[in-house]
């Protein structure tokens, strides 16, 4: 075969499939043999023979070449393991570093993957949208849907092929056993088209059942005849018995007791149970939306995009529909818009930023881990430099040496990644258990195939990257003369690179330390927020009175309070909305005689004793007392300071009147603002009115201030309330300290995680600094020996090491501070009560890093100081 002949070129190209070593050993022979085979086939004059030789060769190469690569890989891994067994300290440090970094990333990825990335466990879940109403500009606030508007949307849309309206209600299950309060979803027809599922037992709602109105013409809620149970409830309350289908259960909602027929049980993992922001539904009722309600926008509307429709086209259609409904009902809908959002986005929107932040923080730890691995390998490779140069001189290819370096690094990374994956599998359940309530989809978190794939990819990338870095840090081995190989140049191999890497580690660790510091400051700011009440020794008890108390609210409240207040250990007790829980609808309020427009203020009915039990701070006037009876005139109200600021800026309120719900009430007191909704939201203007003077039947919550341990009074409270009504269910018993603890949990959790990540980053960075400092001491032994002979003191020698570390820490801190400042915009959304560029936090982070760096170089410095000049000069 002529060297330039086309078949030979083709064959040589095919040979490229084999490892270089194999090609080097057998490539020429194979080419010669192939030429003979081909010539023999050509000599028969049949081209098919030649084609067959080619075909057979190509097929053979496709089969053999991967096996040869595997063979080389196996030998390289074996070689790497032999080398690493001779360097156990290197191997253990490297594997540990990678394990920590990869394990952390795999854990966080498990959560990010399950919560943010994986689609919802519902058929075609990417077609699901949530539909909001948007209040008129300039507020443009996303609100729930009103039922009348929903009905009009459903009649007009072509881009959604199923829609459903969902509300939530607490519902008390009566009958055998203790009354039990559960969350029920009230859904409209189409719910199971939007969220398809099969019942575990029984059946779903029929169209007929879905057509009965949710309320009757008189405004009373109609009897919902059918109820579906969640799998959990079925097991817990009905023992998982299949004969429960077709039986009836007695329940109590707002109105009279109702008797419902159990028609089915849903699957245990039915994803439609987690649609309500305030908890997991355990039962489903069906009813037609109320076409008379156009203003109350509090229901949750969902839809499923029709085939071929996109979110964009659906939004465009709903913009048109919103315009039409605005024109048709200007009083109710004027200025209102409609916004469609992918369902997954609306479920995870509150945690998205936090989770990506944690993922970013974990990635920083990974970068530091990789930097450590690269540094270890650079030091390791440089000790093998003469060996490698010799092998190169003896004919080994550079590619072969590179391959061995990378295999060694990948072996370490994969071993570390394996240990890291195990760590993730072990820690993820703890992480999930420790997570604060309110993070959606946490029960979907587990280390699945995606997490394993992520770990493998991250480990391989880390291994390949570090291996390449370490190998190329050796420079050009070919041109080195033996004297340079064994001389001073051996030491400088990669030294600068190792320093640069250590500087990067410090910079990244500093960014993390700043982030962790900001989380600590945020938590402190949240913990220091003025509450406006005193949570110590107060316990809240949820109440769920039955139908017999309808129209006898005042009697019930007085009965409960008389009995509870008389109990030993009770200082005061009252009924009203507990703090840090949702509630309180805005009511239009006007000041009589003032032409100014009405303002919307939250009205909160409370009994006498409630504000005292809460420990609210009275600023002026008085709280409610026994004189504030149902028939007292004038009626009374207590305002919070925010309401006073809104109604009479800078003025006094006590003695003045306000008007709402078509009646006038007199302000009898002013209290300091109480944080009653979200902890981190400024208290809204609120009017407290005596419960006895209101019509609403919402006896929902008893607050008791005690002398000693608040939980100690609960048995007595239970007995006292049983004495009044044995069917009255007590729910959600919790001290206000516990409520507060829960409300602060998300911030605490972020602080703890950021703290752990930052400590890990700092520890790994210390390891990196230690490695560089220790390496440099070993390199400079002869120099230090000479200096000591010339009279350098111990302090001087320690100074040499300290200066070297300072040249790493200084630039590292500078770059880190710049990086953290550059990221302050990103982190601004995650902090509260502290500026993302808070100087004190930055300073603390810098000082911590410097202290860590000092600690890391202490041992190498001591070693340098202990060098015996005679020994050093002899060995150098």
């Amino acid at each position, binding site marked *: 075969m002529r060297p330039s002949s086309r078949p030979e070129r083709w064959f040589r190209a095919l040979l490229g499939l084999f490892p270089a070593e*194999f090609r080097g050993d*057998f490539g020429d022979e194979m080419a010669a043999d192939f030429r003979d085979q081909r010539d023999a086939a050509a000599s028969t004059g049949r081209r098919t023979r030649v084609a067959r030789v080619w075909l057979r060769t190509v097929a053979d190469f496709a089969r053999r070449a991967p096996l040869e690569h595997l063979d080389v890989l196996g030998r390289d891994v074996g070689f790497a393991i032999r080398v690493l067994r001779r360097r156990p300290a290197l191997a253990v440090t490297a594997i540990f570093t990678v394990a920590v970094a990869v394990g952390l990333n795999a854990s966080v990825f498990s959560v990010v993957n399950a919560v943010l990335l994986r689609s919802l466990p519902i058929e075609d879940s990417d077609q699901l949208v949530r539909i909001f109403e948007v209040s008129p500009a300039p507020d443009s606030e996303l609100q729930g849907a009103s039922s009348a508007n929903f009905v009009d949307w459903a009649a007009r849309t072509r881009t959604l092929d199923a829609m459903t309206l969902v509300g939530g209600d607490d519902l008390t299950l009566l009958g055998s056993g203790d009354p039990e309060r559960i969350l029920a979803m009230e859904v409209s027809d189409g719910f199971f088209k939007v969220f398809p599922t099969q019942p575990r037992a029984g059946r779903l709602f029929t169209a007929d059942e879905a057509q009965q109105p949710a309320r009757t013409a008189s405004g009373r809620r109609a009897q919902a005849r059918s109820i579906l149970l969640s799998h959990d409830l079925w097991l817990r309350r009905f023992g998982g018995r299949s004969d429960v289908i077709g039986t009836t259960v007695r329940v109590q909602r707002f109105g009279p007791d109702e008797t419902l027929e159990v028609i089915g049980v849903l699957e245990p993992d039915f994803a439609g149970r987690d649609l309500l922001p305030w908890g997991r539904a355990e039962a489903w009722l069906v009813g037609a939306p109320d076409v008379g309600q156009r203003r109350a926008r509090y229901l949750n509307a969902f839809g499923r995009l029709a085939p071929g429709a996109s979110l964009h086209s659906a939004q465009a259609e709903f913009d048109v529909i919103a315009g039409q409904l605005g024109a048709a009902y200007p009083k109710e809908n004027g200025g209102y818009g409609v916004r469609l959002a992918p369902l997954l986005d609306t479920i995870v929107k509150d945690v998205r930023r936090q989770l990506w932040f944690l993922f970013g923080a974990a990635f920083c730890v990974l970068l530091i881990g990789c930097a450590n691995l690269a540094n270890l390998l650079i030091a390791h490779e440089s000790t093998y430099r003469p060996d490698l140069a010799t092998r190169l001189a003896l004919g080994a290819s550079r590619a072969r040496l590179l391959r061995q370096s990378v295999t060694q690094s990948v072996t370490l990374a994969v071993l570390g990644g394996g240990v890291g994956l195990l760590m993730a599998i072990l820690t993820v359940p703890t992480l999930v258990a420790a997570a604060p309530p309110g993070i959606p989809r946490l029960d979907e978190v587990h280390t699945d195939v995606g997490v394993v794939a992520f770990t493998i990819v991250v480990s391989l990338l880390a291994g390949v990257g570090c291996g390449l870095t370490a190998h190329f840090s050796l420079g050009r081995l070919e041109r080195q003369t033996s004297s340079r190989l064994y001389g001073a140049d051996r030491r400088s191999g990669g030294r600068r690179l190792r320093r640069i890497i250590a500087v990067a580690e410090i910079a990244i660790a500093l960014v993390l330390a700043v982030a962790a510091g900001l989380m600590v400051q945020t938590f402190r700011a949240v913990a220091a927020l003025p509450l406006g009440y005193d949570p110590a020794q107060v316990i809240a008890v949820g109440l769920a009175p039955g139908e017999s108390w309808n129209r006898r609210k005042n009697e019930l409240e007085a009965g409960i309070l008389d009995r509870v207040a008389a109990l030993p250990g009770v200082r005061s007790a009252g009924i009203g909305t507990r703090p840090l829980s949702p509630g309180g609808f805005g009511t239009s309020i006007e000041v009589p005689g003032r032409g100014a427009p009405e303002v919307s203020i939250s009205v909160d009915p409370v009994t006498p004793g409630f504000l005292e039990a809460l420990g609210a701070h009275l600023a002026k006037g008085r709280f409610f007392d026994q004189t504030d009876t149902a028939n007292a005139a004038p009626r009374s109200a207590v305002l919070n300071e925010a309401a006073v600021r809104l109604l009479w800026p800078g003025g006094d309120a006590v003695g003045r009147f306000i008007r709402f719900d078509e009646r006038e009430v007199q302000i009898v007191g002013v209290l300091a603002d109480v944080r009653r909704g979200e902890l981190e939201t400024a208290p809204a203007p609120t009017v407290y009115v005596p419960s006895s003077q209101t019509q609403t039947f919402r006896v929902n919550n008893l607050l008791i201030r005690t002398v000693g341990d608040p939980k100690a009074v609960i048995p007595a409270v239970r007995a006292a309330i049983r004495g009044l009504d044995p069917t009255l269910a007590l729910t959600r018993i919790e001290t206000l300290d516990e409520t507060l603890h829960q409300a602060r949990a998300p911030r605490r959790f972020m602080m703890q995680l950021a703290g752990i990540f930052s400590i890990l980053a700092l520890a790994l960075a210390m390891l990196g600094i230690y490695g560089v400092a220790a390496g440099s001491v070993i390199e400079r032994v002869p120099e230090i020996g000479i200096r000591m002979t010339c009279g350098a003191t111990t302090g001087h020698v320690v100074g040499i090491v300290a200066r070297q570390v300072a040249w790493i820490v200084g630039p590292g801190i500078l770059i880190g501070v710049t990086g953290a400042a550059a990221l302050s915009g990103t982190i601004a959304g995650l902090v509260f009560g502290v500026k993302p560029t808070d100087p004190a936090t930055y300073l603390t982070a810098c000082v911590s890093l410097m202290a860590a760096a000092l600690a890391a170089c202490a041992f190498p410095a001591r070693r340098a100081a202990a060098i015996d000049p005679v020994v050093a000069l002899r060995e150098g």
Partner: protein
Amino acid sequence: MESRQRDPAGCLPLTPALFHVLLSLVDGQKHGYAILKEVAERSDGSVALSTGTLYGIIKRLLADGLITQSALGSTDRRNAYRLTAFGRKVALGEAERLESLLRTARVKKLIPGTGGA
């Protein structure tokens, strides 16, 4: 040297392709193409080795000490290979193993017309 101490049975059984290559070297040293040709002719084309498989086998046989490169007969582009003493023992061991199997097949009258042993 090492091959003298090794037990040929440790290398058995051999794959058919590998045994074919060893067999082709029993009557003297050959280079790759000669091996390919002989194996193809001896098996009436039923075992058609290609260069990739052949040199994969040669690499393994060299590493295991069953064959060696022969200085005699090698050209600038081609090496000749010959059996080592150990390789010959391994080939013999495989032949005996196959013969014993064949005997059993005959006793069991699996092979028609050949009768019992």
